[in-house]
């Protein structure tokens, strides 16, 4: 079997890729996609620890499922927001959405 650490490393890599995307992308939708990557990285961790920890208890899978749900809700609301912002400001570039600028 593949050692647990490999999965965790893959997950860490995926997480950091997503992190980079969240910090560096200009487009809001792209940021949302990067967030999805991060959530998936978390899920990989959850499932991996479930598998190597205690497969009889379903905690890992349950949490992964809840992350799915949250991700779906987040995507729906996020995209709706972007479309609303796009309608009013004609852009989804995050740098240009700076109503809070001092």
């Amino acid at each position, binding site marked *: 079997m593949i050692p647990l650490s490999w999965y965790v490393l893959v997950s860490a890599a995926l997480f950091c890729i997503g*992190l980079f995307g*969240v*910090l560096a992308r200009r487009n809001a939708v792209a940021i949302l996609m990067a967030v999805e990557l991060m959530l998936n990285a978390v899920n990989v961790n959850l499932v991996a620890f479930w598998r190597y920890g205690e497969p009889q208890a379903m905690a890992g899978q349950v949490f992964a499922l809840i992350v799915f749900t949250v991700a779906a809700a987040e995507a729906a609301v996020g995209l709706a927001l972007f479309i609303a912002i796009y309608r009013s400001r004609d852009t989804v570039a*995050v*740098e240009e959405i*700076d*109503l*809070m*600028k*001092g």
Partner: protein
Amino acid sequence: MREFFFDLTWLIPVFPLLAFAFIVLWANPNRKLSTWAAWAGIGLSWLLGWTIFFLSWGDIHHLTPPEANHPVPLWALPAGSGMLEVGFQVDTLTALMLFMVPFVCLMIFIYSKGYMGYGTEQVDPHYSRFFAYISLFACGMLGLVVSDSLLTLFIFWEIMGLCSYLLIGFWFEKRYPDPERITPKEAGLKAFLTTRVGDVIMLLGILLLFSQVGSLSFVDLFSHDTLHMLAEKTVTLPVLGTMPVATLAALLLFGGAMGKSAQFPLHVWLPDAMEGPTPVSALIHAATMVSAGVYLVARSFPLFAAVHGGTQLAVVAFIGAFTALFASTIAVAQNDIKRGLAYSTISQLGYMIAALGVGAYIAAVFHLITHAFFKALLFLGSGSVIHGVEHGHHEVAHGHDDHGEEAFDANDMMNMGGLWSKMPRTAWTFLIGGGALAGIVPLAGFWSKDEILAHAWHGFQHGHDLGTFWPFFVWLLLTLAALLTAFYTARQVCLTFAGRPRTEAAGHAHESPPSMTWPLMILAFFAATLGLFGTPWANQFHHLIGEAFEATPFDPFVAGLSTALAVGGAAVGWLVYGRKPLAAGDVDPVKRWLGPVHTVLENKYYVDELYRAVFIRPVIWLAHVFFKFDNRWVIDPIVNAVGRAGVSLAKGMGWFDLVVVDGLVNLAGRAGATVSSLSDVVDLRFVDRIVDGVGDLVRAGGRFLRPIQTGRVQNYLLVAVLFTAITLLGLYVMLPVL
């Protein structure tokens, strides 16, 4: 039948909650329906509450602890490792609160209809919303009273916090010409944030208890074994040293009570809460919010008493007594009728807290109940007065248009006077409420206050857990406060009602509508008679709250002294303000006598100003400083500075050229003119430059600081991530754990 009603206790907070939901979701556009929904909600709660109270009165021995503390679980939901248990319980304290809270709330609700101008031209645009909010507020308080664990208590506690924010800031669009004066919006925010400070401390206490006991239900927490364990176990803190867990937990819980019950360091929100509509003030100050703090301390009193002679009781006693005196001195110098009452509330809460501190549990709860009635009465009465004066003002303003809408403060007692004949019902009831507050025999306030003083005196005479100093301290401060209370109450009554009207508005005031005066009269009845249940000779109250607590013996010295002080204070008040009432434009005689001291009192000992200087300014300053990070805003100013230096240098060279070289050349030819031109140059090149330089500096500073808020989420996030990374890195490097 008893069980049947007891099992329905959980419905008490649900009725107002349903009313809230109904108004918000369906009845919002319909004022009449909203009013009736709110009344129905609180009315049902009142009926059920009194049913339970009188059932337990008749059946008292079934309710005395510990049997009474059987919580009734409603739901148990799985939450992580444990179960989230939601339930309710009825014991004597709860039953007492159920006697007071829904009834006073009902009176306030009925009063609100008239106050918010139902059916008149001046009806509030958010009339329905107001009823929704106060329903939710009542739900919060009732839920807090019936809850069986600290967790549910905290939830309802926070609901009340939210409602206080919403209601204090109810007239959120209101602005005042004076920018220094606090607006309702800011007052709401202030109340919310100040109580939040206490709430955080309280949450810490709850977490501490949970970590130690593993449960938050009162039965588990206050069982003999748990209390013993908590008192035995000690904890060491960095600054405070070693203390029993029970002491620490009690102190932390007391932090929450300090916030909600407006005790000394956290009292600042309460006077400003007067910006809300008057029924809200009554609700907050009498029936619900501030009582919640005292209720919390009373509810967790076993915890406070777990360690004999511990610091926690001393702290409680000190804070309470100090607050009582402190606030009553301020109240003497307030001209705003509601603010005066607000400080009186703080002072009276101090009484209760101090009473709990010296162990006068029964007296404290008794005072909580009586105070709720007469303070609600006073607030509603003041609201009625303000309402009348405002209407008088409107009438005057409409009468002749040239009067204009200049700033007119209907709350200012200096604008009143002579309302006795205009508003007789309000005046009578206000007088009864004032008498109860001042402690005049045989009104309610006398008995409860006297019991507190007697208990403290008894502790001083016969020894106490805390030794003899603290009881004496409490007794002394509270007695002084009693004198001041009588004085400022008399002052308020005289300024408001006696003499002749000092303004045209007061002259045109009318009695308020019956929906406002009826609650006043009912409350006045209770304010007058309620004390008779707690007389030292036939202490029904003591009987009700439980024989477990030691009764306070009647002490003729204390009773006589406090009666003398009350009558004396009132008499002095009458002598100063009542015998020869102030005319329009007169200066307050006390102000003349006290001079600068009065100014300090009028400004509430400058506590607000102190907080602004110590807490608010540095926080804002820190927030500004922390964002120098972004490279653009660091590098840009550097580049600019270099550029500006270059320009300055060039200008300096030019100056050198102009002044030195030219000056040397021209020196010979124009010796006579040189002196005058030199002085001119000095003026232009030095003085002007310095002035300009200061200006530039300020502008550059402004430009430097302004864009620290980029408004970009990613930017903030980057800083956060970088900071996290650095912190983690530091942790790994420094901690040899990993």
